[in-house]
């Protein structure tokens, strides 16, 4: 409708008989496809996914599935509508020819597109020593198969589980182990669990949670090596402090790597930090010029966010994948004047040790933190993060009903520390504390959010090319 008078009808043609290809057939890919059909896209739609399964949901994998309360192959994502797609499952995309508008597949096929959506997500960072990582009993947790394998290993009743890395996934795994009555050791290089995502003040609360639930939590140490028995099964891990822990299941929870290698040499601005795109989800090429036919969404995307100083955010958040997919799909089928920015306020949830954790905004940008409601000691609270005199993020433990209020505070750049009285304000909530994030120049394992400070006007924007 809007396009008709203004353009040559190319958009109408695209909608009627165009070819859209989605690479990455998971959460973002599926939701985008549904939105495109919803918007009346009638052309051909190809969904390419390297996993053999139709889109499934990952959050249950580290929660219900590990507890044995849900079966990994029952986590298929509910369909919002039929998408009538040509599914190419179990086949990776291996290359992209931007000028010929063609995606190459692992089986030698090529698929042509008029619009391409890249939603290849991330994968678990493997144990750096490949030989040790290949020992039986060593797991990562990203896919349905990982979840199924790990759940079986836990059901077999190992004497001890070692979780390496106490980010959200590692902490959830530890929690599930305890709930199953398994002995578990957690090794974290940082000072506390979740420090990368939520800072040291909240990290301390998380550490207490681990310890109170009987987790053998070791912080400030690195695992230096894994040792197998003669049958090739893991039996022990060696720590940087000289200690050894015997474990027959080891879960490597060291964060994620972006699935961008397949784009190496394509000319697209894709690298280890993801694929940079504009706020409308259009990918940049390596020259920093925005493409008009290639879009990005989900964990693999990095996009500038006006509310956070136009920093490029890459978010490994379920809600982000859904919202960004929606925006990308809308923009793929719109004239430029009708495009929308992806202005989603980052939000994340986790559940561990019986506690529901939620955050909004970008906590790692915060330099200070103030407990506005409840109490850290009771592990039931709301806290806000301050950055240059404004509220930049908030986190709740078992208190999420207030979160929309704090989200609004972030959206309206409300002052920090908050000047008003609230219900349930305790004495500890009277003075801000340093938020205590690890020095960003020291690499940590798998922060949920990585920030880099390029403004859209910054001409020196550079991308590290993908390594094969």
């Amino acid at each position: 409708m809007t396009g008709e008078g203004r353009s040559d009808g190319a958009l109408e043609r695209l909608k009627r008989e165009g070819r859209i290809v989605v690479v990455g057939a998971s959460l973002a890919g599926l939701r985008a496809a549904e939105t495109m059909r919803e918007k009346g896209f009638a052309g051909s739609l190809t969904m390419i996914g390297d996993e053999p399964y139709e889109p499934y949901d990952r959050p249950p994998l580290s929660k219900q599935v590990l507890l044995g309360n849900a079966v990994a192959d029952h986590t298929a994502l509910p369909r919002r509508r039929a998408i009538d797609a040509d599914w190419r499952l179990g086949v990776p995309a291996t290359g992209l020819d931007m000028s010929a508008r063609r995606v190459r597949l692992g089986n030698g096929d090529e698929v042509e597109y008029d619009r391409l959506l890249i939603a290849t997500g991330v994968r678990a960072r493997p144990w750096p020593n490949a030989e040790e990582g290949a020992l039986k009993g060593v797991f990562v947790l990203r896919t349905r198969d990982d979840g199924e394998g790990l759940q079986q290993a836990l059901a077999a009743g190992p004497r001890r589980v070692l979780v390496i890395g106490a980010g959200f996934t590692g902490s959830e795994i530890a929690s599930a182990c305890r709930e199953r009555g398994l002995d578990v050791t957690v090794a974290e290089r940082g000072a506390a669990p979740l420090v990368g995502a939520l800072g040291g003040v909240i990290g301390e609360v998380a550490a207490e949670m681990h310890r109170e639930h009987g987790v053998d939590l070791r912080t400030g140490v690195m695992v230096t090596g894994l040792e197998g028995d003669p049958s090739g099964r893991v039996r022990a891990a060696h720590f940087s402090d000289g200690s050894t822990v015997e474990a027959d299941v080891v879960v490597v929870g060291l964060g994620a790597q972006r699935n961008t290698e397949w784009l190496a040499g394509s000319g697209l601005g894709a690298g280890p930090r993801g694929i940079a795109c504009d706020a409308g989800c259009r990918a940049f090429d390596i020259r920093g010029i925005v493409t008009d036919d290639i879009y990005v969404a989900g964990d693999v995307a990095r996009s500038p966010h006006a509310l956070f100083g136009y920093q490029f955010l890459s978010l490994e958040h379920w809600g982000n994948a859904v919202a960004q997919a929606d925006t990308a799909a809308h923009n793929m089928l719109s004239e430029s004047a009708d495009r929308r920015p992806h202005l989603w306020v980052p939000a994340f949830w986790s559940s561990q040790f019986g506690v529901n954790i939620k955050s909004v905004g970008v906590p790692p940008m915060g330099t200070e933190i103030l407990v506005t409601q409840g109490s850290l000691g009771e592990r039931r609270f709301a806290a806000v993060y301050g950055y240059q005199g404004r509220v930049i993020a908030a986190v709740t433990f078992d208190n999420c009903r207030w979160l929309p209020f704090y989200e609004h505070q972030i959206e309206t750049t409300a002052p920090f520390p908050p000047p008003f009285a609230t219900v349930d304000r305790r004495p500890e909530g009277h003075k801000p504390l340093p938020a205590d994030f690890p020095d960003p120049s020291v690499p940590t394992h798998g922060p949920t959010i990585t920030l880099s400070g390029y403004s859209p006007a910054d001409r020196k924007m550079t991308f590290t090319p993908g390594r094969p």
Partner: protein
Amino acid sequence: MTQALLREIIDYANRANPYPLYEELRKAPVSHDGDGPYVVSTYYEIQSLLHDPRISSDARNLKATGDDPLGQSAEDEGTTLPPSFLKLDPPDHDRLRRMTNRPFGPPHTPHRVHDMREELGGLVSGLIDGIATTGNLDRVDLVDQFAYPFPVTVICRLLGVPHEDEPRFHVWAETLAASLDPDPDADPTQHGKGAMDARMELGMYLAGLIEERRKNPGDDMLSQLATADGPDGAMTTMEALSTSALLLIAGHETTVNLITNGMLTLLRHPDVLQRLREDPGLSVPIVEELLRYEPPVQLLPQRTTLSDIEVAGVTIPKGASLWLILASGNRDPKRFENPDRFDPDRKDIQHLGLGSGIHSCFGAPLARQEAQLALSELARRLENPRLLEDPPQYRQNAVLRGPRHLPIACDGILPQAA
């Protein structure tokens, strides 16, 4: 001082159709006159205030003299029940609500409501059979013969309150519900005294039951409230009393209206009634739309500001009384397309009918299930039902709004499904 606005909301003349008044109100999201409350009428503003930690539900923060049947002011402490969690802020609210939830819902009791389904179905069938056996289908009062006895029986069973005592606490419940209705003309001492007496009597009645359950616990909620000892410790006797009083009254006075408003709306929309008759599954979206279109709790008159708060350009001062007109927000055209249309096919229906935030309706899962079963069975079994009075006679209450009687006629009553 003039409180014209308040008067108008309370005015019984607007009871049958308060929506034109709400539409007028929505011209400004916040209205205020005289020394009356700040009245908020638009969806997004209400929604955000329900999540605003600068708003208190604790009646003790109210500088207004308004009486408060479910939680008395500080000076009454010791002579009557302490406030129920409906009238408390965190952390007390959270602790009591959590403890009440343990025997009621997930995560500790995920199946309770669902497991009552068959029992509820039996009650519904029994009541409809009862209508059939009276033989007089020319005039059936759906309130007295169905919409009232059903939820009351359910809440009695759930709590473990003997149903034969119902006539006694019915009077107390009515008094307490009526006193929720803010009436600027009523003599505050008289108005408050009646409620306080009713509350006392109800409290004493429940105290006897709780005492007995402590000795002989069953699997009802009273027993569980009386004996529970979870991570939050145990409830004091007074807390158990005010909590059970709250559940009993809420169970009396809200679902009744949801079901009655529901049948009234369906009878006014015969096409939807016909669809429900053919597909009982439609009761799920119908009940959601009803909660938007004719919510049983029209407004929340018990909130106070702890700081100055700016709402849509108006600064509401600290210590002010706030009225949130849920039913008006539910018809806000900025939030819902064609808001005055009853449309069970609506997508994206996030209404305010059950509140939102930490005080959102505790009994929601039960109320939904009750209303779904009731409406789908009535639709299926009543042959050619029609309204005898439209609008029917309403109850006085502007807060808990619903018909006092709903006289209908029908040609016959189909037998229970095999």
